[in-house]
């Protein structure tokens, strides 16, 4: 689910932009794996592959067909850090060239699909790829990558005050589940197909750790997503909490206000301050970018 611009409220898209930038800085360094820029062509080409693969239809009966999303496939074949970079590149192109997803909302989409989606898609494979659980692990990875991304997207929309009555949420959840299972099945089919052609292309994960750790990590990811979802459905809880803590009315407005009324409520200030708030936020993102780049360069030299 690519969220367009105009849906998320400024606190939501801003904070996600900042968090995504910071996370990407870390992830990009890991993806390089000390090979400087040698991996760049591979990652770029595999990104183009995913784009192209999305054109191929997988029929599922009753006249409908789905297509590959790719986060789990990339994570299994390239490793999670590289996969996150590739997914980010894909999201950037989708936003810029195809207007699929907004620009201010890019941080949110990156968080949902390139970071959480990739991680959720990778973890089952990492822990259960040896032995009988391998195939279910791959399918589960596909399912979780879609579910995590969609769950976070819904949470962000709810947090921003977009209306989603319970019935709609129920239908959406069912749809995400089905899409996720399809993604899992497609991912498995493609992984097996690739292995049949050339076993060397699927990376073997590092030595298996205890399955318990795997279950814990998965539970943590699911809880995080579920928790955000639950919290976002109860903005009044947040409001009463803010009252109890004695936070100023402006802060309350910031936390609980839906987007259209953002300026109409208590937050009555000259237009300069409103626009400046957004711009300062962008300045923060820019600053974080530059600072991270310098930090990475210094660490490499040192």
């Amino acid at each position, binding site marked *: 689910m*690519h969220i*367009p*611009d*105009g*849906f998320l409220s400024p606190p939501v898209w801003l904070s996600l932009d900042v968090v995504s930038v910071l996370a*990407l800085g870390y992830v*990009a360094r890991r993806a390089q794996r000390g*090979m400087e*820029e*040698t991996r*760049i*062509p591979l990652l*770029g*080409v595999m*990104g*183009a*592959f995913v784009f*192209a*693969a999305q*054109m*191929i239809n*997988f*029929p599922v009966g009753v006249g409908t067909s789905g297509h*590959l999303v790719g986060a789990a496939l990339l994570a299994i074949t390239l490793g999670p850090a590289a996969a996150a970079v*590739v997914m*980010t*590149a894909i999201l950037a*192109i989708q*936003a*810029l*060239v*195809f*207007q699929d997803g*907004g*620009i*201010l909302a890019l941080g949110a989409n990156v968080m949902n699909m390139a970071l959480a989606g990739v991680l959720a898609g990778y973890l089952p494979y990492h822990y259960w790829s040896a032995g009988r659980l391998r195939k279910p692990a791959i399918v589960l990875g596909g399912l979780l990558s879609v579910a995590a991304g969609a769950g976070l997207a819904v949470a962000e929309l709810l947090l921003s005050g*977009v*209306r989603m*009555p319970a019935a*709609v949420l129920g239908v959406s959840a069912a749809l995400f589940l089905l899409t996720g299972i399809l993604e899992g099945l*497609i991912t498995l*089919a*493609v992984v*097996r*197909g*690739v292995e*049949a*052609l*050339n076993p060397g*292309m699927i990376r073997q994960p590092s030595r298996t750790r205890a399955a318990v750790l795997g279950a814990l990590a998965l539970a943590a990811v699911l809880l995080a997503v579920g928790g955000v979802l639950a919290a976002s459905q109860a903005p009044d809880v947040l409001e009463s909490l803010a009252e109890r803590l004695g936070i100023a009315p402006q802060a309350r407005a910031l936390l609980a206000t839906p*987007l*259209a009324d*953002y*300026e109409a409520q208590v937050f009555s200030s000259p*237009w300069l301050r409103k*626009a400046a*708030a*957004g*711009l300062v936020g962008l300045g923060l993102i820019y600053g974080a970018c530059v600072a991270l780049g310098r930090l*990475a360069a210094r660490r490499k030299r040192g």
Partner: protein
Amino acid sequence: MHHAVVDRWSHGHSLLHARDARVKLLVLLVFLVALATARVSALTILAYSFLLAAAIAVARLPVGGVLLRACVVLPFTAVFACLSLLAGEGSRALALAVRSYLSAAAVLVLAGTTPLPEFLRGLESLGAPRFLVLVVQFLYRYLFVISEQAQHMRLAACSRGAARGPLGPDRARFRAASGAVAVLFARSYARAQAIHRAMLARGFEGRIRMLSAPRLTAADWLFLALGILISLAPLAGTP
């Protein structure tokens, strides 16, 4: 290929095409933030629509084409706008529709006046992480090539789909599709290895060196200042 349309637009000639990618991006960001924070009223809708129309005209982009492509956001927006309407919040429905559509059109103006590699170069000089920017660059370079390959495979998979498998034609088509994707994967991977060999043969030793980015001109600075002021102007009308 649909992305080829925007790519074609971006190689046109106009006052906007001639501006540096960096200033265009900055003005776009200010415009988007203004759109996101402005109160949705008849005035602001008119003002921002007019600004966009003016930009499209100056950029010599096909108006119908831009307006049509911006409609990509409408299905998503329509769902949530309806939900808002049903909940009795007409203003929010309008806000969703207006903001998402105008934002998409604004991004189109940037994309339609700036070839992507130029845009990426600008991003990098503004401080975006080089590794990521270069991955996007390579992705875009091979997007068209590999998409064409996939197009051929899709046709082949479709034509082969009439085969009957034990669970019916859908199962056979599913298998043909996954086979096609697997082959596309393998070919793409092999292509990446070939590219690496070509880079080594030409002296690559770990760092991709590029030509220098163009300098900012007086016209660029002027556009930056004007663009920011004009984008923020409609906000001055609201309390």
